[in-house]
């Protein structure tokens, strides 16, 4: 705990501002619905829970992405890892569906980690290559069509059923969040991720096996993406081509808006959580306003830029 007291202020700033911005989004949306429809659906718990349910897939992907970004790397293969895991899970079916999906994610993570940690290929390009290989594999596997196999009952339960009145997907997201947060905060592996992300040479010289840390982080990211893919397949009852594509950039954006440094070594999990909620609510307010895709993209980009200009700025040029 003593670790973050000196940097408490700067580390907290993104979270405070992002939370404030969430309130701004909510109030703009509410004012809009009050003036056009005379009701405030945005503030009803039912609506919010439904938004969080659809946001939980993004949340799980972002959790894995954050671990990799903390290392100063990036995982561009999450889109097709999600799709591949979902497709393999629905193909296998039965009680082995979910374990198969997770195993696909772990395998992709191992390949990514091997390429980045041992072959020392920049993660940006290696994970991109793995992504296109996965896409090729899935096209070959399905023939380019949406597979006919449907999601197993357990997958549907996890993604779209309710438990105690709350969508079970939120519980899964919560569980993943707790695991990742505890891992980052309370385990040696978690601390090693921060150290390696700050300066790999120093970490290596301090006796940390940085290669294994990188490998492990990519496996975590792969597993998270796979879990999200399997659940998304459960939510839409089947897997389909390109189902993971809309998650890649929002996941990166959520992590960065949450205050994680894109160069690695700094960031807290709670920030990523806030970042995901911000993006999910921004999306839902824009769809309530029936904003066309063009306006959405512009607003989306401007929000990221302006949030980062407020607190994500780097240091001035150094000697």
């Amino acid at each position: 705990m003593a670790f973050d007291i000196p940097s408490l202020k700067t580390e907290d700033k993104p979270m405070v501002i992002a939370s404030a911005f969430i309130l701004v989004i909510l109030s703009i949306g509410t004012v809009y619905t009050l003036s056009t429809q005379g009701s405030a659906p945005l503030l009803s718990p039912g609506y919010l829970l439904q938004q969080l349910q659809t946001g939980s897939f993004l949340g799980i992907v972002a959790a894995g992405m954050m671990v990799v970004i903390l290392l100063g790397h990036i995982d561009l293969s999450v889109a097709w890892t999600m799709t591949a895991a979902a497709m393999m899970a629905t193909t296998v079916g039965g009680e082995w569906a979910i374990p198969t999906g997770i195993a696909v994610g772990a395998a992709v993570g191992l390949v990514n980690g091997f390429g980045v940690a041992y072959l020392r290929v920049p993660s940006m390009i290696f994970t991109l290559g793995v992504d296109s290989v996965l896409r090729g594999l899935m096209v070959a596997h399905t023939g380019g069509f949406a597979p006919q196999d449907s999601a197993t009952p357990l997958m549907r339960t996890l993604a779209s059923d309710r438990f105690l009145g709350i969508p079970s997907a939120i519980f899964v997201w919560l569980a993943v969040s707790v695991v990742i947060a505890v891992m980052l905060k309370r385990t040696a592996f978690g601390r090693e991720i921060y150290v390696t992300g700050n300066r790999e040479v120093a970490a290596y010289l301090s006796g940390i096996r940085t290669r294994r840390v990188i490998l492990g982080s990519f496996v975590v990211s792969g597993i998270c993406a796979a879990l999200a893919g399997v659940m998304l397949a459960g939510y839409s009852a089947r897997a389909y081509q390109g189902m993971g594509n809309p998650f890649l950039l929002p996941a990166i954006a959520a992590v960065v808006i949450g205050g994680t440094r894109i160069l690695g070594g700094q960031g807290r999990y709670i920030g990523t959580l806030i970042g995901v909620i911000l993006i999910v609510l921004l999306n839902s307010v824009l769809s309530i306003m029936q904003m066309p895709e063009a306006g959405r993209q512009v607003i989306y980009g401007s929000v990221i830029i302006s949030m980062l200009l407020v607190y994500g700025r780097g240091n001035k040029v150094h000697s």
Partner: protein
Amino acid sequence: MADKRSALATNMRQNVAFYSAIAMLVALYLVYNMLHPRGFSAAVLIQNSNESVAIVFLAMAQTVPVLLGGLDLSVGAIMTLANCIASEVVNGSPLQIVLGMIITLATGTAFGLVNGLIVVYGRLQPIIATLATGAVAVGLALFIRPVPGGNVDDDISWALTNDLYEFVDTYGLFDADAGWFQTISWIPVPLLIVVMIAFGVWLPFKRTVTGRTIYAIGSAEGAAYMSGLPIDRAKIAAFTLAGFFAACGGLYLAIQTSSGNADITQAGAYTLNSIAAVVVGGTSLLGGVGGAIGSLVGALILRVISFYFRIVSIDPLLQPLVEGLVLLVAVSLGAFRTLRVKNQLNLFR
């Protein structure tokens, strides 16, 4: 003479990646033409060069920020924006067409300038700043062209996507059947455009102080700063140039397809392929090493590999897989460096 030869040897040694990329391209393209039923013909060359222009320009665009040690994730989006603008303005009288082209290129360049200003004065990481501005660019493109379509002057489409003969013939510049012209009339115009921009814009720029500063920043920003080099100017120039090259790609795409299409998926795919082309062309993603000419070659290599699928009987369903594997293997080749490194510490950044 001995001096010259040793200078050449040094040059070769310092640019192994670049020269091996050229060798690979030549070998690949020769074999391609041998296997092609109508190989070594002007028609094949014209078609191939037409299909390569956009990605070549994007690869060149991506190179400049990569040399800084940054990355521009908005090049595909800027190309899409330029494509949509061009599909609106490149028609009418010759003067209007020229004006339309200038507007298109200026918009892309201005967008690149904004990227540069955000990166320099906003002090944001290029990768995340351009991720966001890319979304803005695609949004603007969608405003201009919500559905694919548009109208580009037919003459210019025809003249710029064929060989020199048709270009001269279309505009009646001089007698296209003249004897002296025969020797060069087969050259595809798209190839000429790419070569002109690459050698006419990039090479002179590279030799300026600003251009050298980009390399210096990529090698060691602190050292560049301490040496009094114009860091801010170089960064802004790098992103501006990237915007210009991307706009060239978008303009050509509009001329080639006679339409504009604000396709988000396509924009993303072009951006990612541009990174791949840069790496294959021998530019280091860590910055400081490489150049746009290498990326031009890298983009052509990736294109030629995909041309192979047309002549080699391979299950179309396996095509994306083979493309992906080729890309993965190509980028992993750099891993041999890890075997040669004597000091483990050099492996870490």
